[in-house]
């Protein structure tokens, strides 16, 4: 195998249909970038989801002196016995993994932290207006919410039961939708890329039909006849991938990382996540171009 000779042939091939090569590189770049973006979205959504799944899934707010709901008016603020009873009953349920009590003082502190950007709002609210609560962690949030909520619903001292996951559901729906759109566009573009690779290689094979005819005549092995085309496709794929890698870094730095400001905790994707997606995009790009040119050549150069 004379590497220098093959590379020289590849270079002439790529240069000879430059416009096609550029089109190919651009389409491969965009489709890989979109596919990668889809993967980053998946990871981002997983990241936020995993965080929440490790946290409280059910909040049972208790009646205080300032509660306004009719139920609290009727029964008055929750007494210590009522609280003890609720805690004991919750702990007895097999669906419940963990229960902890958040006092009004703790709740107020969390409140001030979460809204620290808006001091005029936090100054308006006093400590006694923030209710204490039981924070319950379920074994299976989706299935068991109603069972657990049902056992304490309507009891004296219980004000409101909030399903944390339902608050996040809208946000996830948005992210999932965006991800699906990105993946669908990526798939369409990948199909376009496959057709474009096939076309470029066919054009290249047509441009070089004299060379290939002579190669076959003087007894070049099939592999040797196909190699320049294969390398051509893979090099175009690698160029596309390089551009895609740049775009993916931009998507993370300028896009996904800005989501961080809406979250009080760390959801940022790590560099390792990004590298994983970029490497996956490379494998995808090389396979896409390599396999397509190989299959195209099979059909075009068949002796």
């Amino acid at each position: 195998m004379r590497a220098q000779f093959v590379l020289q042939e590849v270079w002439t091939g790529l240069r000879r249909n430059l416009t096609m090569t550029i089109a190919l590189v651009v389409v491969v770049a965009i489709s890989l970038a979109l596919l990668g973006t889809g993967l980053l979205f998946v990871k981002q959504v997983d990241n936020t989801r995993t965080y929440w799944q490790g946290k409280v899934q059910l909040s049972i707010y208790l009646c205080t002196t300032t509660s306004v709901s009719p139920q609290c008016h009727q029964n008055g603020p929750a007494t210590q016995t009522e609280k003890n009873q609720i805690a004991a009953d919750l702990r007895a349920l097999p669906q419940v993994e963990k229960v902890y009590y958040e006092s009004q003082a703790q709740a107020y502190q969390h409140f001030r932290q979460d809204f620290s950007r808006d001091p005029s709002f936090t100054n308006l609210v006093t400590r006694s207006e923030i209710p204490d609560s039981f924070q319950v962690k379920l074994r299976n949030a989706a299935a068991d919410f109603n069972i657990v909520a049902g056992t304490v619903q309507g009891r004296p001292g219980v004000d409101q039961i909030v399903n944390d996951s339902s608050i996040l559901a809208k946000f996830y729906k948005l992210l999932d939708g965006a991800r699906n759109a990105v993946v669908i566009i990526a798939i369409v573009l990948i199909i376009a890329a496959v057709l474009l690779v096939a076309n470029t290689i066919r054009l290249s094979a047509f441009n070089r039909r004299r060379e290939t005819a002579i190669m076959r005549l003087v007894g070049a092995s099939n592999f040797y006849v196909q190699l320049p085309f294969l390398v051509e496709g893979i090099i175009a794929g690698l160029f596309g991938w390089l551009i895609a890698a740049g775009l993916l870094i931009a998507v993370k730095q300028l896009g996904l990382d800005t989501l961080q400001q809406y979250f009080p905790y760390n959801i940022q994707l790590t560099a390792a996540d990004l590298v994983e997606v970029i490497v996956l995009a490379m494998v995808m790009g090389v396979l896409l171009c390599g396999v397509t040119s190989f299959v195209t050549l099979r059909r075009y150069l068949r002796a």
Partner: protein
Amino acid sequence: MIHFDNVTKTYANQSRPALENVSLDVEKGEFVFLVGPSGSGKSTFLRLILREERPSDGRIYVAGKDLARLTNWKVPYLRRRIGCVFQDFRLLPNKSVYHNVAFALQVIGKPRRFIRKVVPEVIDLVGLEGKHDRMPDELSGGEQQRVAVARAFVNRPMILLADEPTGNIDPATSIGIMKVLDRINRTGTTVVMATHDAAIVDSMRKRVIELEYGKVVRDQSRGVYGQAY
């Protein structure tokens, strides 16, 4: 070297066979003219030797190999032992004389050192000393055909097939090409040449095989182009 055993070749969509029941032997080191009108089966004969076509019936042995048993991936190795020259030269227009000849060795993976040694020798052999760097369009037809012969011979094939190599060349230049083919034949290479050129066949006095409608109608050692029809 080449052995045809009752070979028939019928192309798809054609009722009359291009070759019919052809049996013949070409020995190592022979020089054979293949004559006959257009469509008599000369080109089919050559294509069968190269295994560009497979016979519809009969057996073909080339260089001791039964072509029917040759797997597809081994065909390139058969072709490395056969050189080919055509009427239309088939040179690469964007490569110099040297690189056209070297191409035949590069694509079968010969080492660069070997190529650098052998290619100038062959270019000299065909009489193109000092023209290594010329491009094909700077050469006359005769010179281009010499390049094609050099390319066919550079890998020292056992058999050289020539399909009307003088068809596009004036008679005076043709003699030069024939001298080159004769020189190659003298190195022990079997040469099979399909031609219409009566003057050349008559002057060379080599074996002549005449085909007509796909059949061998004459096989004569030291023959001439045409019998009295």
